[in-house]
């Protein structure tokens, strides 16, 4: 029996299932993607362009480029891709370059996060209780201002990373009442659970208006494993999530996500099981029950006046390009705020506001500044985003460079 592949060999693209090599070869080198890529806009070099990335991967797959010999250059090439997916939207062949880059990372065994941070975050999927304990230990150490002291102790290096994934001030933890006979599941994202409880509360209450909601606390979606690890880790995590969904309400309950990236990942669950026919049907069934905040947002809100105008939407997302969630969000805001809702213009469209695909490399600040520039150009006062992580990262940059604007998660419309 052959070992399972560490990377995906079959990809679900906008134009059907293709092998990884086929998908890469569909790049015609027309260069239209260069106009959309934030990395290329910042530094117009070929390795920073989606075209260059695809060509590099093609050379690698054809054996013309050795990973070991060009490790540093390939690492720079891979980290320059923020997986924002803007290139897919302009590509004539809708080539999923971000997906190629994820597989390229796996093929090259690149570890883009600090090792102890990677293992700490992986614990959320493998040992959620231990993860919870470790995070809270870090939280207390931080509160006692002894984090750096503990972190130097051999074997306690992970402690300093708990600080990286925790907010500066301790938020009130998100606690939802228990529900009997639930008919709706809410899967809070990592950031909603630990950093931005208001997003979790808003998402929960939006769902709880009409449904009996059960909250799956401290449950990994598998997105982290998919982005940073071996594909087998992601498959394992996703399998347990699918099974849990199957056993809750006979697998017929909608599963709400508050993060657009998690939503897109779960929607693509069948892709991860393309080579496992027995899991295909289950994954398809599971993907059909995934909903995003925009699907449950009511059409009218009483308190919409409390948002400062003009309003801007930055629907930055990885993994998927043309999805209904990205289309419905602007429609909702347009209906709510009418003329006060500013549509992004050429090039600013879907400007990157960071998210799960974000690798903190040398490009990080540049991308953030591009997003800030877009906000400033539109003179927006309130910026809506579809992911908590994007809200955190963009919020940090806006506070620094354009403090008059505030970032809100779309769930905050609930108040």
């Amino acid at each position, binding site marked *: 029996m052959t070992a399972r592949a560490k990377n995906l060999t079959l990809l679900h693209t906008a134009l059907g299932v293709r092998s990884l090599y086929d998908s890469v070869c569909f790049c015609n*080198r027309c260069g239209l993607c260069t106009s959309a890529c934030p990395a290329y806009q910042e530094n117009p070099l070929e390795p920073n362009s989606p075209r260059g990335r695809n060509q590099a991967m093609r*050379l690698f797959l054809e054996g013309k480029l050795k990973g070991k010999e060009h490790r540093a250059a390939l690492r720079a090439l891979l980290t320059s891709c923020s997986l924002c997916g803007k290139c897919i939207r302009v590509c004539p062949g809708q080539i999923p370059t971000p997906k190629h880059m994820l597989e390229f990372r796996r093929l090259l065994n690149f570890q883009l996060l600090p090792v102890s941070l990677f293992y700490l975050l992986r614990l959320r999927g493998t040992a959620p209780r231990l993860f919870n304990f470790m995070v809270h230990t870090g939280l207390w150490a931080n509160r006692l201002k002894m984090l750096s002291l503990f972190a130097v102790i051999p074997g306690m290096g992970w402690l300093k990373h708990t600080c990286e994934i925790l907010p500066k001030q301790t938020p009130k933890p998100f606690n939802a009442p228990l529900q009997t006979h639930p008919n709706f599941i809410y899967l809070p994202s990592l950031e909603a659970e630990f950093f931005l409880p208001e997003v979790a509360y808003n998402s929960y209450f939006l769902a709880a208006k009409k449904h009996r909601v059960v909250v799956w606390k401290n449950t990994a979606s598998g997105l982290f494993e998919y982005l940073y690890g071996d594909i087998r880790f992601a498959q394992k995590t996703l399998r347990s999530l699918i099974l849990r969904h199957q056993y809750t309400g006979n697998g017929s309950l909608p599963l709400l996500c508050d993060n657009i990236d998690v939503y897109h990942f779960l929607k693509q669950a069948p892709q991860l099981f393309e080579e496992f026919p027995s899991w295909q049907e289950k994954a398809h069934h599971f993907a059909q029950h995934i909903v995003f905040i925009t699907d449950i947002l009511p059409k009218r809100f009483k308190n919409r006046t409390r948002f400062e105008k003009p309003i801007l939407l930055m629907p930055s997302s990885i993994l998927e390009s043309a999805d209904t969630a990205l289309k419905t969000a602007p429609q909702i805001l347009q209906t709510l705020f009418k003329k006060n809702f500013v549509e992004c*213009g050429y090039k600013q469209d879907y400007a990157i506001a960071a998210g799960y695909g974000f690798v903190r490399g040398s490009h990080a600040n540049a991308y953030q500044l591009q997003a800030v520039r877009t906000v400033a150009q539109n003179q927006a006062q309130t910026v809506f985003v579809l992911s908590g992580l994007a809200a955190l990262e963009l919020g940090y940059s806006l506070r620094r460079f354009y403090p008059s604007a505030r970032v809100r998660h779309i769930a905050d419309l609930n108040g």
Partner: protein
Amino acid sequence: MKLTPRIKKEFAHIVGPANVQTDALSLSLYAYDCALSRTQPDGVIQVTHAYQIAPLLRICSKYHIPFVVRASATNHAGSCTALRGGVILNVTALNRILRIDTQAGFAVVEPGVITGNLQAALAPLGYFYAPDPASSFSCTIGGNLAQNASGARCMKYGGTLNHVLQAQVVLADGTEVSLSRTQGGPDIIGLLAGSEGTLGVFTQLTVKILPIPKHIQTFLVTFPSLAQSIQAVTTLAARGIIPRCVEAMDKTTLRAVEDFSHAGYPTDVEALLILELDGTPAQIKKESLVLGKICREHGAQKLIPAKTEQERLQLWRGRQSAYAAMARLSPNVMVGDGTVPRSQLPTALNRVQQILQHSPLKAGLLFHAGDGNFHPHILFDQRNNFQTRTASQLLQQILKVCVQEQGSISGEHGVGVEKRALMACQYDGGTLTAMARIKHALDPQHLSNPLKILPQHFLEKARPSVLLSSEEDALQQQLRTWKKEHTSFVIVGQNSKLKTKEKNVLSSRSLNQLLEIDTANYTVTAQAGIELSTLCAALKKAKLYSILPNTKGTLGGLFCSGILPAFYAHVLGIRALLPDGTTISYGGKFMKNAAGYPLTRLWAGSQGTFGLVTQLTFQVFAQKQKPVACLPFQPAAPNEIWTRLQRTLQGVL
């Protein structure tokens, strides 16, 4: 050649060590453009400031290092590949818009500015830059000029070469030259347009900008056959209506586009036209009525006007996504670019369709119907050798059909390396020799984008020279005699401007025939010695108009003296004799030509320094043209490029 540490150090001294790349990954990623060819350079230099180019080229010249200038590399001709190795000068970082002057109507830009970015900067000011290549969101202005790109609006506004007013150029040996359209002499900017970086490097460009028309009306017209749609466009032009854009699609492309973009195109028709008129509301209304009538006369099935701006954009969305619609069907799309005279378009398309029908590969046709430029999109997989070979052969066959139908192998994509061999089908030995001499004059070491445009051993493969008339033959003999005797001479028309008293004067007076008035293509072919008054009378009789003034002098004299620069853009074809008697035959009745150096521009305003123009083909119109005042004649001050060209073309190598 490998770059030695010493050379690398010298390059690094100018651009910084980080901007000189020689690692295998960088070299692989700068080995391609949008065409099939792929060749690795020896180094990649990231140019960050325009002033770095001249010293870089001096180093290249010193060490005989070939170089290729590369911007977005979106061309379909293989113009950006380093065939002889050497270095790639990546100028994408030169992307600053330096100045926009709406009052004087120009913008100063660096060559790496993305065309779409310039449009975006001009739009809020109520202005636009007329050339609009389909890849305008990714291609650069410098690249557009180097390839002489145009686009859908070309029929009304012309290609990139008509929209550049000034240019800063660095020649292959590092000589910096400042060129302007107002400085007199030959139209060197026009000559460098379409040179694909083989003659020099643009470092700064001043481009013309125009106010955005306030009123635009777009129509979608369907026809039962492709030929009828083309005939309708020809009649439209014949009646003097020049639409802003005329785009056409065949059935295959139409279906692919509709499946992809859902633009609302009817799919049960054989051909579709998208026509756009601009101007004053009254003018648009008047032209719309004529347009509707003409389309119905030619069997149009549906004529749908766009009622709102949204509908207009919806119609264009389909057209703009045509490439995308085809690209998703196959890993590779080979985009051809043939041009024929408008009247030959139905015949040419018929022949092309027959070729495509017998081919194992799927292909669609898309064309700028207004200027006889069509783009076959051939779908293939580059990994499959048979398919790649078939696609290349198919394209060659199609382009040969264009040449047989008195057209050109390239209307706007350029020649590069992909169509290089076909240049010998289009041009005779004399014309190709002249192009080779131009290259030699400006780049004697053959370092600037070497081995492009001109085919190898072209003298053996070139098509036979055109048959000269008895008068031309006599003049050629005279030139050869003088060349043999090393006698100097002066070229004149009626000698009305130069008023020379030289002993040896070569006059074009004997060439005084009006050869053809083509009312299908709206072109006139006349010998250069024809008097302007005679020509104007003949045009008046045929109810045709041009911008030529009814003054003293000859057609050739007016063209070569440089007193009417506005006329240059109207000249489509030229026949000339070089000072050593070599015959040149360039262009024809087709509206666009990006195959080789634009030789019409070499003689425009050349004041007899490059030989004698014997015949000109130029555009005429059915509508009255605004009279253009002639400039006073004065000998132009020579510049570096003119002097070098003069020396080489006169045979002093």
